[in-house]
């Protein structure tokens, strides 16, 4: 009885709420880890989604209706996540699933809920290359997107750099993990497309005192340079042994080695010809617009993983639904690339931006959303690119040599994909 009363009060509340704006309501489902291994970051990520939905409602709702944000916990477990996603789609009727955090939860939701139910899924936080593979094989039916850059552009940028430096043969030594395997493969694919040859691809296991065998295997075929995908401590061992055994001083280093620990262990004088890559910090009007809104709402700076990407995942889905004009998963997926990365007026995060976007939709004019993570362009597999910086070692210190903004990364990616 108490429950019934409670739900009727809720329904009443919802009705009065919608009565002010519209007469209908669309559920927007999100599956995140509020408990479990990612619990520490899960709640704040959920708040970022809520913020986007609230701002959109303030701007007048989406597709003619008020949007209700429904957040479910996956406990970091695939089966719980799938159940949560199922109930969001089947009971709440959500045309979208936002999430999850862990790739191991995101993937089963995608294959067993989003794709069969033809619902758009956008993740803020899953970076596994296996999701890109699934998309490339057609297993995601074009319904899958993520706002966190994968490691793929890193491989492409590094391959482009090596190609521009005139290198023809390279060896790849990589850490035997999802990250290492994916990045090594992306680099190899890009470098070979650019006309280079990968002489050896050698995986290594972490935490070994010596990688002499791996390094000597990588040295076969006299490669002109090495692409090393590693974490600082093991990376230092590999780099030292590589140089010791007569390897070229032209080292191409993945993002994790941008650490003073690495430079110190290897020796700065040995790294003068080395170049590395890392994600660049994004700044700009669209980013500060989100940061300000977050601070106003929650009273603290938006420091933490997944906040910017979750906000953008939600905002992009809402804009696409507005553009599609109906809460239909397929229609939303089809409109996601229309509202991002294209031509037209720039839309910034916030109530003002969303109001303007709704006007432009009504006038049937193009616009492009530039979000909390900066400009967003989803590629064919639903992945985004990010800006990168190229670092080197000068006078014993880590120095930024060059920066690659998103258009430059996009151009490099396009050159590989053509």
């Amino acid at each position, binding site marked *: 009885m108490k429950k019934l009363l409670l739900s009727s009060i809720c329904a009443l509340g919802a009705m009065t709420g919608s009565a002010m704006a519209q007469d209908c309501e669309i559920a927007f489902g999100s599956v995140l880890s509020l408990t479990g291994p990612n619990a520490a970051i899960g709640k704040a990520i959920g708040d970022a989604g809520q913020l986007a939905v609230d701002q959109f409602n303030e701007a007048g709702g989406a597709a003619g209706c008020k949007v209700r944000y429904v957040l479910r916990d996956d406990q970091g477990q695939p089966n719980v996540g799938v159940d949560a996603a199922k109930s969001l789609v089947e009971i709440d009727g959500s045309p979208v699933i936002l999430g999850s955090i862990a790739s191991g939860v995101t993937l089963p939701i995608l294959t067993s809920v989003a794709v069969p139910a033809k619902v758009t899924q956008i993740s803020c936080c899953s970076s596994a290359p296996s999701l890109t593979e699934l998309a490339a094989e057609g297993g995601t039916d074009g319904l899958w997107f993520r706002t966190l850059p994968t490691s793929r552009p890193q491989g492409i940028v590094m391959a482009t750099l090596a190609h521009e430096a005139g290198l023809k043969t390279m060896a790849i030594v990589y850490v*035997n993990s999802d990250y290492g395997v994916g990045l090594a493969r992306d680099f190899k694919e890009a470098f070979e497309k650019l006309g280079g040859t990968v002489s050896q691809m*050698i*995986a*290594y*296991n972490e*935490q*070994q*005192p*010596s990688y*002499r*065998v*791996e390094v*000597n*295997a990588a040295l*076969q075929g006299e490669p002109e340079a090495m692409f090393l995908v590693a974490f600082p*401590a093991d990376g*230092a*061992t590999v780099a*030292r042994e590589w*140089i*010791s*055994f*007569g390897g070229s001083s032209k080292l191409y280093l993945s993002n994790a080695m941008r650490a003073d*620990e690495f430079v*110190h*262990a*290897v*020796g700065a004088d*040995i790294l003068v010809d080395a170049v590395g890559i890392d994600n660049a910090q994004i700044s700009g009007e669209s980013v500060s617009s989100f940061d300000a809104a977050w601070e106003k709402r929650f009273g603290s700076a938006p420091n933490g993983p997944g906040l910017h990407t979750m906000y953008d995942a939600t905002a992009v889905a809402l804009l696409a639904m507005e553009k599609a004009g109906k809460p239909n998963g397929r229609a939303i997926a089809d409109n996601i690339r229309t509202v991002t990365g294209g031509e037209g007026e720039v839309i910034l995060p916030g109530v003002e931006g969303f109001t303007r976007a709704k006007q432009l939709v009504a006038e049937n004019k193009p616009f492009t959303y530039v979000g909390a993570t900066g400009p967003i362009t989803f590629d064919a597999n639903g992945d985004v690119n990010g800006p990168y910086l190229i670092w080197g070692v000068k006078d014993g210190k880590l120095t930024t040599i060059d920066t690659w903004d998103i258009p430059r990364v996009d151009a490099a990616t396009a050159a590989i994909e053509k």
Partner: protein
Amino acid sequence: MLFQVLADGILTGSIIALGAIGLTLTMSVLRFPNFAHAELITFGAYIALAVLGLTGAFMGPLAPLSFGLPLILATVVAMAATAVLALLIDRLVYRKLRARSKKMTVVFGSFGVSLLVRMSILLVFGGAATYYSTALQRAIRVGGLFRVMPDQVFTLGLTIIIVVGLHLFLKFTRLGLAMRAYAENPQLVGIYGYDSERVLRWTWIIGAALAALAGVLYGLTVQIRPEIGFHLLLPLFAAAIMGGVGNVHGAVLGGLIVGLAESLSIYLIPPGYKMAVPFLLLLLILYLRPTGLFGSAKGAVR
């Protein structure tokens, strides 16, 4: 490629051999597999590092080696300190367990000691990887066939000298003879009026000193981490058992075989899986020739 792989295998094998000699000696004389032996290797490497930190680089390296007199001094200190640690562990743990419990209890005791030593090292020195010298040594090309580092050649040479020396010691000195006799029959040593405590003591001292030496030499060519000894545990046991417990020459050959097998395995399996090779060898040996390749009588020091 083949020459490089062979050279690598022999050089890694020589370090495994050094550690395995100490292990095989203590295993046969003390009659239990000391799992803490690997930690003696780590301990030796870190003591040398600490001594080196105190003495500093008051002398440059002896070209073409990457180290100079300070490290040699540090090694001697490390060997002494490790021997003291081994005797201390024996006095505090093993002796008590030996006196009043079964053999397996001592084995489990050695696991406990192993953890204790490793964690103490982690506590004192931290978990970050370090080096004796951050200066990078470049390998020398030998006849266009393969590359070696001078330090590796030094290690190989030292191993050969130690094996010959140990052979002579066991064959011709009174203490060496007593150690061999004790391994065969402890009571008999007592009957002949030889102090068996002395035999045990010297077995610990020699085994620990060799472990410390192996640790320093290993640390010279790889990163020094609190797990370096632990990672050598399986290769050491594979080498010692392959050579036949108590067989010094067997341990050396076993070490070389394990080193070579690890190196050559890259022709068959990706390098990432080479850690499994000593394990497979150990299984094979235990299955086919449990007494070792040379079929030694059980527990004999040769």
